[in-house]
């Protein structure tokens, strides 16, 4: 079985972001980057499906500037077999442009399963996976929290509000992965060293025309510090009064 997993390199979310001088993007100075969280789950799902199936091949794809090769190496060090870097100067905001580049690479690759994270944690569009499915004419399942494959058929579980559903689909297919599949494995020291010897192919990204662009980006206004007005039932009237007069939410 051949599996592709598309991953994105995103800034570490554990920092206070600043807006760049352009006013349309975050200031990249001092940021650390890593694989987008949900893409980590997708990579894990790919590895598990492959291990259960016994002896297939998993390829990771990442689109972006040279720096994304670090993220691809991480995927390789988790155990993914080969990597493709679709090279472009910058990752456009427009998922449609990205989807076309990915579909151009994936189409005709003979993949049985193409996995994505449910969304990238920086732009949160949730769009690239379904768009690639559309471009390739493949069935698409989004936000799978479990994934099983056997005999040319896939089964995925999706979490709903207070319930879950299971869907079946024929392969080849595109699936976007939610957390809930096993936690992404660590690159072990052995994996890290093995990754250095695995193939990483670099190709120019055939991006589609960009139609959606960011015009402004703003940080949320600073919140005032919380205030404790007292304790116990006696304070309720005062709390209600403040919610009405100061916070004006009642």
């Amino acid at each position, binding site marked *: 079985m051949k599996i592709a997993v598309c991953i994105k390199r995103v800034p570490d979310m554990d920092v206070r972001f600043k807006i760049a001088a352009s006013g349309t993007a975050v200031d990249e100075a001092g940021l650390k980057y*890593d694989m987008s969280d949900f893409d980590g789950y997708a990579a894990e799902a790919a590895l598990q499906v492959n291990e259960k199936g016994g002896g297939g091949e998993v390829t990771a794809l990442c689109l972006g500037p040279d720096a994304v090769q670090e993220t691809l190496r*991480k995927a390789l060090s988790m155990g993914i077999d080969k990597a493709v870097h679709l090279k472009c100067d910058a990752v456009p905001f427009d998922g449609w442009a990205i989807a076309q580049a990915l579909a151009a690479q994936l189409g005709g690759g003979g993949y049985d399963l193409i996995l994505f994270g449910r969304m990238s944690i920086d732009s949160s569009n949730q769009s690239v996976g379904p768009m690639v499915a559309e471009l390739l004419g493949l069935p698409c399942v989004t936000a799978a929290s479990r994934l099983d494959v056997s005999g040319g058929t896939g089964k995925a579980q999706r979490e709903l509000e207070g319930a879950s559903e299971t869907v079946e689909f024929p392969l080849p297919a595109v699936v976007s992965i939610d957390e809930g599949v096993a936690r992404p494995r*660590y690159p072990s*020291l052995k994996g*890290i*060293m093995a990754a250095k010897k695995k193939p990483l192919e670099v190709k120019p990204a055939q991006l589609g025309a960009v139609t959606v662009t960011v015009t402004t980006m703003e940080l949320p206004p600073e919140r005032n*510090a919380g205030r404790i007005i007292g304790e116990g039932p006696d304070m309720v009237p005062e709390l209600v009064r403040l919610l009405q007069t100061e916070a004006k939410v009642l």
Partner: protein
Amino acid sequence: MTTVPSPRDLDFLLYEVLDTAALAARPRHGEYSREAFDAVIDTARQLAADHLAPHQKANDEHEPHVVDGKVVTIPEVARAFRAVADAGFIAATHDAELGGMQLPHTIATAALLHLDAANVATASYALLTTGAANLIAAHGSDDQKARFLAPMLAGRFTGTMALSEPDAGSSLADLRTRATPMDDGTFRITGTKMWISGGENEIAENIVHLVLARIDGAPPGVRGISLFVVPKRLVDDRGAVGATNGVVLGGLIHKMGWRGTTSTVLNFGEQGPCTGYLVGRAHHGLACMFHMMNEARIGVGRAGAAMGYAAYRYSLEYARTRRQGRLPGEKDPTRPQVPIIEHPDVRRMLLQQKSVVEAAVHLTMLCARLVDDLETAADESVRREAGLLLEVLTPVAKSWPGEACQEAISNAMQILGGYGFAREYPIEQLYRDNRLNPIHEGTNGIQALDLLGRKVRQDDGAALTLLLARMGATVAAAREAVGGGTAGTSTNGGGTSLGAAHTLGTLADALEAAVARLAATTGALGEASATLPPARALANASVYLELASRTIVAWLWLQQATVAARALVAGTTGDDAEFYRGKLQAARYWFGWELPRTEAQAALLTRLDSTVYEMQVAWF
């Protein structure tokens, strides 16, 4: 949760101060690159966050206890041990043919700092196993390596270091555990060991104890001590784990901190025979053990540095967000309260911590870097010098981080006010956990005797002479960085590049004076030791240890400050510039507030102050 140590600081030490990237050029580490080093550290970071930090508190609150003769630990401990082993950290620095990864010690140390900071008690099971494995790798027979080392490196067996006894702690020369030779070349072990960390646990298949004992008829003192591998369960020729081997848990000790690691009393050969296998040559056990103890001692410093760093980062975050009071001069009570970091006294406590914990990490990393040089530098003179420097630095690297970080953690607690004292917040546990560091692996008092009585004297003081020369080179490099000569006094610190240069010049002058003070004091004590009784000459050894430690830390800060000043003079801007200014300011703090204490210490030592020595037992 903030990451400990801070990634920026760690990168600074690794790649800007210690030139770690160069290690990837050495044949032993040829498979590595800076990217691979960083990937290893990232894995440690993730392990710490996912597998260690989450149960740090639970492992303290639900400390191991005995049920039906078995030790019960919370299940997270075994899972974390498994994860650390699977990631490859137990075997990280070992040879590839043993299943190791030939990782440089510097990178392994950088990685382990994260585990120590997140949850030292759980990490200890893996660290002890690595320590014991190192010893078998260095001195064990091929058979011992196959039978015990390989499963330890794979995380199937844990390891311990069983030296101490109820009546032999500091004075290992007086240990009483016995080894009786058997016809088949093995030994029967009998005796009681105490305090043995990880001595009983159910987190792996087997436990490999490395036991110091006296072979029947051995000479008294340290020259009659031998080292044995004593498994909890016997292991047959094919590696299968079989019957128990007469090592019985006498009980668990209930501690102030570091509670998640079992501390055990072990009885050997009391209920059924206990077989031990001699490691290395008979009567040379202590020498073998010291091989492991030097690494273990640097490891103690690393743990202290990590815990101090964790408390620092927590209190820093807290000080930025906790609002309390207004600055002096603000009369308007309707004005919002300020974050407490605005109060100079809080910044004092943060700066004290910063100057201690970042230097403690540096000291630990430097020692690891020297271990790398000792083992893999191409040039024989580099290897020899690394060995010499480690001789003098090890007692300091063992003792200073734990000691100084105790004060630092106390300041972290102070910054949290009442919350710092509450068990709902993490500082009090770090305070309790770190308090072990001055005690185990040779108390700090013993380290002081080792430094003054042995390390600075041996080979005509060659090690100290070399260290002082290195300090002199740092002074010269600092002066060169600011354009030669001494730069007058500074008033505005590192705020501008001109200020950076001034600060550096002043610090270089101060280190030069401190180095002269350390040299003169050592000389005076050396002369005195020729005429005075040894107990008198060594009576103030702990003060000497502190003098040496504070001077060494000043040396480290001057190295960091030089890198920072160079970067600022070269026009670095943005967050990086703030980072470098912070380094300069911490260096200024150390030199201005902490180093001057060595003046009083040098005076006390040089006049051979006899107050303590002459104090009579009956006068207490």
